[in-house]
């Protein structure tokens, strides 16, 4: 399944809860303020890198760019656009938004 997170990891616990439930075979997509979690030096970097050993982590490029973070993405996180977001939704039978 696809886990969609849209909250900053330093403001809310949504990402932590998501990562505690995401498993092999699934994928995590970071959008909106959650893209900060995909940036180097963020307090969430270690937990995102740990997640990357188990499953793919994606971040929405338009949201990274909007936040001035397009060039600061953690190695291994894949950047996708809205079309890629759609593809991920299609690829996985279900999605859960961790609001």
């Amino acid at each position, binding site marked *: *399944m696809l886990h969609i997170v849209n909250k900053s990891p330093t403001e809310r*616990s*949504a990402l932590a809860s998501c990562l*505690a*439930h995401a*498993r092999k075979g699934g994928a995590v997509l970071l959008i909106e303020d959650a893209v900060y979690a995909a940036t180097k030096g963020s307090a969430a970097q270690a937990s995102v890198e740990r997640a990357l050993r188990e499953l793919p982590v994606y971040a929405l490029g338009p949201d990274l760019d909007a936040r001035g973070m397009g060039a600061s993405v953690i190695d291994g996180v894949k950047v996708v656009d809205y079309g890629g977001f759609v593809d991920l939704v299609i690829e996985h039978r*279900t999605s859960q938004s961790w*609001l």
Partner: protein
Amino acid sequence: MTQVAEDIEREAGAEAVVKKFMFVNRKAPHGTIYALEGLEVVLISAAFDQDVSLAFLDDGVYQLLKGQETKAIGVKNFSPTYRALEGYDVEKLYVERESLEARGISEQQLLVAVQVVSAGEMAELMEQQDVIISS
């Protein structure tokens, strides 16, 4: 096959669809409306003969606490509605153990009978769903 027969078959097929719906509750009650309006969706979904379950994790477990008295904040107390779910044949209520523990809540403090599951089991339950609605 005639057009009419085809239509009937298609309709019967559509009616036969039973999907696994999970309503994921991760927000505390009263501070925001998500718990209340989320519950309204659950009640409606009961009319559609789907395979409905509710998941309570993170602050969502607070929704199920006994003894909520909302009079002094002047807000409607909707917590008794969780007790009414059984009458709608909504009987799969999963509550995450880790979420209860992090909040110092025991199963005895909850106002309905639930199945307490681990985070791992909750993750597995989520993966079995066809539709997940969170708020």
